């Protein structure tokens, strides 16, 4: 199928002020066949489901599993949807009990903190691209958690290692979809055309396709089985369009990575939006009487209505590329020559605290909206991050949104309260973009690690503290510098010194995982750099409804770059 190229141009989008499939800009005729295909696909699936008296979801799931396992990943997604493990499933009960009897025991605290921790050591060699390994952890506060994390090694092309944290809002759907799909988009954007051709031919001929990515997943990490069919199709469209562009720049320079990251972000957001529109056009409330369909977390509408920030790091051949969208951060831990730790931010927050970002937003809308575009540090008074995936209610035309509100009250009832109405002063959409800010950094021997975390961490802890803690932790994990007592040290003195060192090592080693170590300190910080067990216990035993006001979901990935 020949699909004419789509050039998804942001400025044009802005100017046309609406993305409506019925109003496809003349420059993008390719969308039509693509959408027709999707439409047909949906119809077929529905028909099939009806004929076989099976639910749509079921039918689709089967289809997707086959696709996914065959084409996309080395580690096929587990068949059933796994929820993030909530260590304190009986948290509220325990909290009540805790208020009476005291606190969580140390063992309970550790169980909660370590439930989602994950670390992986990359085998040394060309495929590790200078990454020694990573430690990761996530602590939910929302129920279910809206944070997601991903890490994977690119297997084709020039390779590289990818890490990402995704902070969802208005539900986890978008973060979930992005965390699963973004790396594929990036891979497709990076792959040489010849490889893409082979890939496409293999799919066409129903042959086995070499895996693109090797995921490094915590067993409890979410993986959604639904939606894969559509997403695979969108992905395939994407690479077919790339093939049709036919003007591969052979420059293997790092500019390629930057543009690939940009492309992948924008294209994925565009696809999310388009899939939702297709879905919307197909599913009038009459037709969607199939129970549960509208509630499925991976329904394209729910993905598009919720939103997600993203902070993605690509490491390849000693070069770091960080693509950021929203208010997660990537901070580099640099050890200076005198051994002190320095925190180097590789990202800028996209929120009201960033004046440049504020200026950008204001500049993109008429002066008349100056007072309404950003209110109370929020976009249109509603959204904290100024850039995000999904969130179509800040992107679609008002007509489109009204149609959504009219036709699919069922979907809206499933998503959060705030989403159900048109944002106030919604005059010149889109207000939100998915254009990432890409930073490039040449790795130096002094760059020891990179901390990637959602705002949940950064609002509790300054980046310098974070780097200091991780630095000490990594140092503690590696062999302590041996001590050489001076000649007149007494045995008693030395014993005390050694015992103290032992104690210190043990407290550091209480968490083998640097991300858990950070979590513990972030939640239990007593203000003097130590962990106050009581505070930590209180923070962890907050009842579910209260937790969100004390702490956000926290997701941390620490990428170990160089040995100390």
């Amino acid at each position, binding site marked *: 199928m020949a699909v004419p190229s789509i050039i998804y141009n942001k400025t044009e989008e802005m100017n046309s002020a609406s993305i409506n499939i019925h109003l496809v800009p003349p420059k993008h005729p390719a969308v039509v066949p693509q959408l027709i295909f999707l439409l047909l696909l949906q119809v077929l699936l529905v028909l099939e489901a009806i004929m076989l008296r099976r639910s749509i979801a079921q039918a689709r799931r089967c289809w997707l599993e086959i696709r996914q396992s065959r084409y996309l990943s080395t580690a096929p997604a587990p068949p059933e949807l796994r929820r993030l493990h909530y260590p304190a499933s009986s948290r509220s009960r325990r909290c009540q009990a805790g208020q009476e009897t005291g606190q969580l025991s140390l063992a309970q605290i550790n169980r909660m903190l370590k439930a989602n921790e994950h670390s992986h050591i990359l085998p040394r060699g060309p495929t590790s691209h200078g990454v020694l390994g990573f430690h990761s952890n996530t602590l939910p506060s929302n129920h279910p958690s809206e944070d997601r994390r991903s890490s994977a090694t690119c297997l084709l092309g020039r390779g590289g290692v990818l890490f990402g944290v995704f902070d969802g809002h208005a539900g986890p759907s978008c973060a979930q979809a992005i965390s699963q799909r973004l790396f594929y988009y990036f891979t497709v954007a990076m792959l040489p055309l010849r490889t893409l051709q082979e890939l496409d031919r293999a799919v066409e001929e129903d042959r086995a396709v070499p895996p693109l990515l090797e995921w490094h997943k915590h067993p409890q990490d979410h993986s959604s089985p639904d939606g894969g069919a559509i997403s695979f199709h969108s992905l395939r469209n994407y690479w077919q369009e790339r093939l049709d562009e036919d003007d591969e720049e052979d420059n293997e320079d790092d500019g390629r990575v930057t543009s690939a990251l940009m492309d992948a972000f924008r294209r994925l957001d565009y696809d999310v939006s388009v899939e939702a529109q297709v879905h919307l056009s197909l599913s009038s409330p009459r037709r969607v009487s199939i129970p549960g369909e509208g509630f499925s977390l991976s329904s394209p509408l729910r993905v598009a209505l919720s939103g997600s920030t993203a902070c993605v790091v690509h490491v390849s051949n000693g070069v770091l590329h960080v693509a950021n969208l929203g208010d997660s951060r990537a901070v580099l831990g640099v050890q200076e020559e005198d051994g002190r730790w320095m925190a180097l931010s590789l990202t800028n927050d996209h929120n009201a605290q960033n004046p440049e970002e504020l200026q950008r937003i204001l500049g993109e809308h008429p002066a008349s909206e100056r007072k309404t575009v950003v209110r109370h540090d929020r976009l249109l008074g509603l959204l904290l991050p100024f850039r995000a995936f999904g969130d179509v209610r800040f992107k679609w035309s008002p007509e489109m949104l009204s149609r959504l509100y009219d036709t699919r009250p069922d979907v809206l009832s499933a998503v959060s309260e705030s989403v159900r109405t048109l944002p106030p002063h919604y005059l010149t959409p889109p207000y939100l973009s998915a254009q990432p800010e890409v930073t490039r950094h040449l790795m130096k021997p002094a760059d020891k690690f990179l901390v990637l975390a959602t705002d949940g961490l950064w609002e509790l802890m300054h980046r310098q503290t974070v780097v200091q803690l991780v630095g000490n932790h990594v140092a503690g994990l590696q062999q302590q510098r*041996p001590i050489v007592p001076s000649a007149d*040290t007494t*045995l*008693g003195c030395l014993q005390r010194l*050694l015992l103290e060192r*032992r104690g210190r090592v043990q407290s550091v080693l209480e968490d083998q995982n640097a991300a858990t170590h950070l979590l513990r300190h972030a939640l239990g910080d007593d203000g003097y750099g130590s962990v106050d067990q009581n505070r930590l216990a209180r923070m962890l035993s907050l009842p579910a409804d209260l937790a969100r006001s004390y702490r956000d979901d926290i997701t941390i990935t620490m990428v170990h770059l160089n040995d100390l």
Partner: protein
Amino acid sequence: MCSCVRSSRAMAPALLPRLLLPQMGFRLAGRGLWTSPQCLAVSGDSQLPPVPGQARVVICGGGIVGTSVAYHLAKLGWTDIVLLEQGRLGAGTTRLCAGILSMAKPISIESKMANYSSSLYQQLEEETGVKTGYVKTGSLCLAQNQDRFISLKRLATRLKVLGINCNIIKPKEIAKLHPLVNIHDLVGALHLPDDAVVSSPDVNHALAVAAARQGVQILDRTAVQQVVVEKGHVMAVETDRGSIECEYFVNCAGQWAYELGQASEVKVSVPLHGCEHFYLLTKPLQEPLAPNTPVIIDMDGRMYARPWQGGLLSGGFEKNPKPIFTEGRNQLEIQNMQEDWDHFEPMLSALLRRMPHIEMAEILQLVNCPESFTPDMRCLMGETPGVSGYYVLAGMNSSGLAFAGGAGKYLAEWMTYGYPTANVWPLDIKRFGNLQSSRTFLRHRVMEVMPLLYELKVPRWDFQTGRQLRTSPLYDRLDTQGARWMEKHGFERPKYFVPPGKDLLSLDQSKTFYKPDWFDIVGAEVKCCKEAVCVIDMSSFTKFELTSTGNQALELLQYLCANDLDVPVGHIVHTGMLNERGGYENDCSVVRLSKNSFFIISPTDQQVHCWSWIKKHMPNDPHLHLEDVSWKYTALNLIGPRAMDVLAELSYVSMTPEHFPSMFCKVRETSRSKAACCLFCALALMLPCLYLQEMSVGYANGIRVMSMTHTGEPGFMLYIPIEYALHVYNEVMSVGQKYGIRNAGYYALRSLRIEKFFAFWGQDLDTFTTPLECGREFRVKFDKDTNFLGREALLQQRQEGVFRRFVMLVLEDHDTELDLWPWWGEPVYRSGQLAGTTTSSAYSYTLERHVCLGFVSPPPGPEGLPTPITPDFINRGDYEVNIAGQRYPAKAKLYPFSSLFTQQKRRKEDMELSNLQGK
């Protein structure tokens, strides 16, 4: 010695505790005493003396062990000895040794060596004029708990047998002997007044001086590169400065012995591995510690401490040792070893707990002194199995100083006479083979061995690391049925089977000198052996096949074995392989498979020793072939009165008593000669007829069935080609079900064989025990046509009389529940006088008493000559066995309880026939 001075100067400030190497000693030792011209030449800095082209003996290693061997060889009259040292004399472990000379060692031969070393070092100063720093301090082994105290008491009884002065003392007395020791948490201690401290580099030096004076050429800075071997004999040694032709080579290379072994043309396995060992030196205390303050050994605290220059020297054997040199870095001298204070912290804490008052003492240095350890905590000594003339003495397990004198003496005797004057089998390098020489195995095992030096060792402890190397094909099957395992020569053997529902963990971890937890489990197994039928996997046995085209095989065996091997095909003969002195080199069962082929079954740990013994005496004849077939056969032992039924049902061979006049004689109609033989047996029931037959069991054909059980109980040994093992086992178990079959382990076997007075080689029998001493004269055929090894000695002994006798001691008035259990090595008293020691013991579930086996001998006559033993002496004495200081009355018996047996007349002999315990 100038080089020594130089070396000490070079290293002293940083690494070497200067005072461990008093310069005085070296200077005094000086030029006048160092007689050998080669050694004088050493003092010239760059001019090294030429390497001689030829020597009788080349010793590699100038540490205390190498010099001791040279010294003793020279003393025994050897000339033409060359000692090579790659660096400088005593630059390895010897240089940094802590210098404690203690006789409290876990086995008697080691205590004996330490005892000899002590007296040697004591007189060395007088002999050579070199100061050795010998100070008789005595030593205190402390006990923090009752179990440790029991083990010290047991040690004390053993040391007293050897004539080593020692006492068990109370905490108060400890405080009197040592001013610094905190006694509040102590139960008691063992005091050895004759223990000493000594400066090991100085002893090393003194030995070198004495050796040089007797003509030993000592060449330092000469590294051995390769040992040239031709036709299994040492021919020459290649060094970096030329090669030396020689007859004998002695590998005393310490840390480097493993690599040196690998460097010979025919690789020699010297299984040892280095571990870092730390000790602390303090500056003199405010009130300097007297030089004769006793050495403190606090095993529960894992530390030791000795006085040193008014201060303390204290080290230990930590739980988490740091193995080193696994990759075999060829370090010339042990230099620049890192100090690791964090690692030392537990030992420092233990020291301060033991001596709180030295808190204010100032640190001088932490010394890191690598030591070499072996897989079983005992040193490696003797001629290597593969290369004749290649001797090894290494792997001292941090007791190099204490052992060097005695071990050097024994090795020198070994090289001179062909055997040492004491039973050194526990130290013989032939107890190991190639299977123990994997670096990974050694690394893992020494990490267990080093902490084990100070760990409490209770009866029947096993190593935990380096396991599951050799297993029977039934291993997994047995394991799932609850088998608990022990290891022998790398082979996993079942100890007993834990019935389902028992708490396994506590069973495995319990440590006691009293009644063990498995008592009832083993009891049930024994009962089943007596009343129904049990199956024991005994695959670990060493199995050889000796074949020839002519009658060479028979000739060889007739020469090696004391019994007559010229028996009809299919017969089993129990026989000892004796040495020239009539002592047991091996105790085995030999089956005549055909006219010219024999199947030899020996104990598990004889695999290397027996192989080399046979090889050594085997003529170089291409038509005579010895093959190790241990790996080809799985051995199942069917024990019990119903074994016959099980086997009959499995093989469709009628096994009713009418067909078998003797249970042990199986008539096969097809073979006339065998039938005739058995008929003979049947007629003359006096003679036991042990018989092997190949038959089919289940679907499997070619199973070698032998009518013996190694316990004296009725039953069979099945030797099964390994691929049939699982099938046969399954068949046996399913058919046996209706006869009440169950699995049993070696503990049950041990109880059965000891109550029937079966001796086994390696524990009861050794190279110094003759058949006459253990009542096995009937297995010696003096009148067979050919001469056999050891015949002369036995004839002479028969003439002169036997001076000691193997007896069975049944403990009376011993409460199994409450009293300490015997193990082995307990002194035996006759009418209040020390008469011998036990060699093994077990609880007899039939007698409901403990049975100890051991040797007793009458006190020497008036002129100090040994007195021949008489049955009267044995039967008429009041015997007592001393278990950890408590004496229990015992009945001594020369023959087992006949009432135990149903067919007593035949069994009386038979019980002594099956002897292969494999232990």
